[in-house]
């Protein structure tokens, strides 16, 4: 099988038909790969925090490593939700206006909830 179906000029430009090529697909995989270790580490912390009080949770998130994992997880996870959710909307919502509105709402929701979560982690880390 041919290894690469793109023309040399297309490869040199690095663009696709919509001027972004496989970027959406690639970022979905990139965030997926990042999420494997990040979610597993976070799952470990959450399991260790089952039944713990708020002080213990706060103390854990004031450690640099868990805080960093939490921040990276928030970025990768909400980015992954934005990308995957957009594909689902594009597959099932056919009315043009509703589709665009749903994608806009998804993008806004991911950014707002993601940044709010990141702000919470930063506030805990810096002892707020």
């Amino acid at each position, binding site marked *: 099988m041919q290894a690469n179906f793109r023309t040399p000029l297309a490869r040199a430009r690095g663009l696709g038909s919509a001027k972004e090529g496989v970027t959406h697909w690639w970022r979905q*995989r990139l965030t997926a790969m990042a999420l494997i270790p990040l979610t597993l580490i976070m799952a470990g912390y959450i399991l260790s925090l089952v039944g713990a009080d708020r002080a213990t949770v706060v103390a854990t998130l004031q450690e640099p490593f868990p805080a960093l994992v939490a921040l990276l997880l928030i970025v990768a996870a909400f980015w992954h939700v934005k990308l995957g959710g957009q594909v*689902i909307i594009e597959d099932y919502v056919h009315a043009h206006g509703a589709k665009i509105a749903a994608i806009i709402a998804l993008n806004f929701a991911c950014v707002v909830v993601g940044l709010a*979560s990141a702000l919470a982690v930063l506030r805990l880390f810096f002892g707020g």
Partner: protein
Amino acid sequence: MWQKIANFLWRAPDGFSILTSLSGLGWEEIMAQVQRPIAPHLQVYKPQISSVLSILHRLTGVVLGIGALLFAWWLIAAAVGPKAYMVVEGFIYSWIGRLILLGFTGSFFYHLCNGIRHLGWDMGCGFSLPAMRRSGWAVVIAAVILTLGSWFIGYAVRG
């Protein structure tokens, strides 16, 4: 009449621009009349491991996306203060909270395992039907074991 002409022309090179200019109809109006083959009805289609696991990947993805709100709520409540944390704690440890968390955990481990399966396909591995069925069942078994195992540890930690 337009329907017959459309069925005749819609594959022809540039048949479409001829059709739209002749009929005065828009592109979408004509396409709605073209009788193209349709996909098999899901109701009469036998569920197979390939299709069931595929739609489960999407479903669990949606569950995780919505479930991420719970994770966000937990983090934000911890940052806001003890009162806000008590509310989220009360919800998580209630029976409905535990049920949601069990669904979230199952969705997480399924989506994780099947996502790894997808990454394997992206690297060109395991495309044969026997390999696809084997990896599919492996994902289901792994997801069940990981879900039950993590809940077992969770209850063991809590005492």
